Structure formats: C-alpha cells, structure tokens
C-alpha cells in the first residue's frame, strides 16, 4: 500500500530533479513548451479555415525532405548539416504546392492533400530505403525525439516562436478576417494571396519543427486536438486560443513527466494526453448540457 503511494511521488521527484540536473531534460522541456505554444496557435487558424488535413499532409512531405537529407548526408556524403534543414525546405515547398493545387482544382480543393501526401510518402519510402532502411534516426522522425534535441534546434525554435508572435500581434485583425471570411477580407482591400503565402510558409516551418517533438505521424494532433477541445468550450475567439494553448502545454508537461517516469515514448504520451483532454471536454460538455436541461425542466415545473 505504502509503496503504491510513494513510488509515483519518488518518481515525480526524480523527474523534477532531472529537470534541474540533466541538460537533455531542460532542452526537452523548453522545446515542448515552445512547440506546445506554437502548434495550437497556428492550428487554430488552420482549423478555422477547415484545413485540418494540411498538417498531416505537410508532415508527410517534410518526411520526404528528411529522408532525402539522410540520403545526401549518409550515402552521397554531402555536408548538408542537419537533414532538418532540407525537411524545412520541403515543408515550405509542400505548403506552396498545396496552395498551387488548391487554386488549380478550385471546386475540389481537398484533392491537393492526397496528391501531396502521396508524393511525400512515396519519396520518403524511396529515400529511406536508399539510405539504409529503417534506422533509429528514421524511427525518431516518425515518432519524435524530444529528448535528443540539440542546442541549435532550441535557437531555431525560439527564433521561430518570436517571429510568429510578432507577426500575429502585428497583423492580428487581418489574420482573423482572412481566416474567418476571405471574401470580406478581399473587400477590405487585404491582399489575401500574399497573406496566404506567408501563413503557409510559417505553417510549413512550424510543422517541420514540431516533428522533432512528436514525429511525422503525430504532428497534426499537436496542432489540431487542443483546438478541437478548446473550441467546444471557448466563449470568445481569444478565450478559445488561450484554452487551446493551456491544454496543449498541460499535455506536453504531463506527457514529458509520464514518459520519463514510465520509460515510454514521449511523443505518443503527449498526444495521448491531448486526446484524453479532448475526451474529458466532450464528456463534461455533455454532462453540463444534460444538467442544464434538467435545471430548466425543474424551473419550469416550480
């Protein structure tokens, strides 16, 4: 009995101690908090525009860049540095490709997603195979490797976070109008095309960086699930953004803690916390609305 109570406590103590003592844990926490902030922030605008599939599509396309990077680095021997850079270039070009296809198939815009996702997956399969098959690096690309992020990565993600915050604060009204109502934005004289171009590039960059945290297969959940939960309880736009970020940060911190103490993969744990929050929100929302109907009925009776 005592063991059952004290064991998790001791383990959580060691998690906090690890945060103070281990550089890799500090880096993981910083990366987690920054990605946990950026992903739902950008994800909100993606959800409003009904483009939730874009995150998944871009992450698969980024994987193509990462595997080509691995191939160039390991097989050809080109000194390209981190394959992440090629991944980032692919994320941005994938985003631009989606935009191009969306305007080409004007009435069937969603066609762009399977086209780009197929191209990304095919290129990934090809270059993963050419560069030596399924190694631990490839595993990390697929499922994330937040515990092994480099100092350089922290710099890149910190700079990206500042740029994103600066852009959102400077163009807040315009971003909100373009997201909610493109036609009205045009009428106000906003150059929607330029806006979409910049937004898409940023989206690509954030996805490429988020891959480091939870991996290609789970990155879209980091952007979409906290927003999906928050939009069911948010009272206003700003309020919903804040709730989404809080849910996301809670999942990142709890996910890191549990993955550390239980020795399970961090990316998957973070995403499962996100999903748990979503389920709790849905249940509470249902209970709350049933209670409200009951109260109303009682009030009607008396």
């Amino acid at each position: 009995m005592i063991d059952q109570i004290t064991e998790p406590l001791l383990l959580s103590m060691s998690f906090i101690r690890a945060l103070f003592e281990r550089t890799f844990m500090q880096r993981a926490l910083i990366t987690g908090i920054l990605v946990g902030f950026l992903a739902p922030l950008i994800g909100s605008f993606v959800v409003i525009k009904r483009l939730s599939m874009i995150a998944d599509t871009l992450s698969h396309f980024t994987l193509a860049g990462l595997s080509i990077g691995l191939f160039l680095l390991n097989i050809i021997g080109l000194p390209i540095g981190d394959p992440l850079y090629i991944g980032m270039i692919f994320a941005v070009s994938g985003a631009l490709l989606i935009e191009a296809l969306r305007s080409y198939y004007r009435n069937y815009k969603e066609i762009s997603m399977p086209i780009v996702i197929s191209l990304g997956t095919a290129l990934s399969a090809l270059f993963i195979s050419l560069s030596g098959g399924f190694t631990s690096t490839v595993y990390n690309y697929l499922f994330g490797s937040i515990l092994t992020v480099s100092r350089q990565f922290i710099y890149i993600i910190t700079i990206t976070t500042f740029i994103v915050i600066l852009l959102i604060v400077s163009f807040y009204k315009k971003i909100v109008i373009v997201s909610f109502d493109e036609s009205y934005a045009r009428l106000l004289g906003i150059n929607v095309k330029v806006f979409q171009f910049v937004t898409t590039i940023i989206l690509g960059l954030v996805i490429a960086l988020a891959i480091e945290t939870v991996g290609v297969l789970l990155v879209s959940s980091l952007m979409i699930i906290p927003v999906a939960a928050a939009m069911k309880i948010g009272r206003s736009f700003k309020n919903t953004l804040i709730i989404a970020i809080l849910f996301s940060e809670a999942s990142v911190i709890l996910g890191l803690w549990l993955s550390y103490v239980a020795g399970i993969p961090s990316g998957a744990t973070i995403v499962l916390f996100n999903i748990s929050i979503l389920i709790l929100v849905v249940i509470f929302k249902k209970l709350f609305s049933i209670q409200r109907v009951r109260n109303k009925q009682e009030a009607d009776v008396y």
Partner: protein
Amino acid sequence: MRIKVDNLSFGYDYRTVLKNVTFSLESGDFLVIVGNNGSGKSTLIKCLLGINRVPDDKIFIDDIEIHDYRQWINIGYVPQKFDDFNYEFPITVNEILTVSKLTKIDEDQKLSILDRIGILELQNENINSLSGGQLQRVFIARALMNGPKLLVLDEPTAGVDSENIDNFYRMVNDLNAEGVTIILISHDVKTTKANFSHIMHLENGKAELTHVCEIDFGGDAS
C-alpha cells in the same frame, strides 16, 4: 458614391449570366434590384464589388475604373448567405466588429452601431448561439463599421421576423437620408419598405439566357 456600369456582360465558364447591363447611380441614390432566382442579381453585385473579375472599362466607381479602384473600405457589403464565414469556431459579436475595422476602433461608434441595429445586448455573445436573423444583423453592423459611402445588401431580410424587417428598413432609409448610397437586392419589391429612388428588373431571356435590364429612373416606385 457614383457608380457607372457600361454595357457589362459576364458569365461563368460557358454560361452567360449578365448581358449588356448598363446603368449609373449618383451619390445618395437608393437602388433596388429585383428579379427571380438565377436572374443574375448576386452576380451583378459580385461584379460591382470586384469579387467577379470583369473586362476593362465596364465598371467605374467614383469615376475610377474598377481595376484601379482601391478604396474598397468605403463599401459595406452584407452577403445573402454566410457560407463564406466560418462561424462554427467561437468568436463574439464584439470581436467580429473589432477586427472588421482595420484602423483604431472608436468604442462609442461601435456601441452606437450595435444600438442602431438593435443588437447591443448581443455584443458579448458567441455567434454560434445566434439565430439566423440575429446573425444577419451582426453582418449588417459589420458592414457599417468602416462608415461606408455605399452599402450593398443582398436579400437582407431573408429569415428576419416582420418586426425586425420594419426596423431594418427604417435604419436603411435613415442611412440613405444621411447620404449613403444603397444597393439592395430583393426577391419581391412589394414587400420592401425601402424609400428607393431607382429600381432595376433583372430577368432571364427565355431560352437564350439573355437578360432584359430595365431601369426606372422615375423616382419612388413604392
């Protein structure tokens, strides 16, 4: 705001919707456009708003060719449907109005618009919880945020109850009396209580999909 449309024909892909439409409006005019479904009313509006790309030298706003026109902020538009607006995501009436004016918000002006449209009590409501008629009024308020010189209303009273329809036309008539040019699309001119100065009938030609465009410059047709 002055508007001149000169022999405008417009179509989508292989279908001609507008054929040789010609008319002009002076500042302070009030035009009602009537016609059946599919007669091209909304298409004409989209041409005037620069949403549909028209050939050169067909539309002039304040004597400026439409493709060179930049002061779109002077035009307030209330669409017929809100399909373009992603309204399932939480956003309050207040937030919509605040972002709809790109320059600094004058809180008093915002409140007086809300009051005028009769939705002052809805300002902190999430738009998901509003009825169709209330949503319509939110979009009318949004169109007024930038102090428009031209107000374009596409079937603005669809789904609005009769009491609010009367209030709505009173407000539109007041705005027109203040010098705002109005273009109002209506299904049926008999039901409008608008003090319009011009009326345009848009009708399909029989099988040729041509349009007969009549403009009655004879003043009040009510």
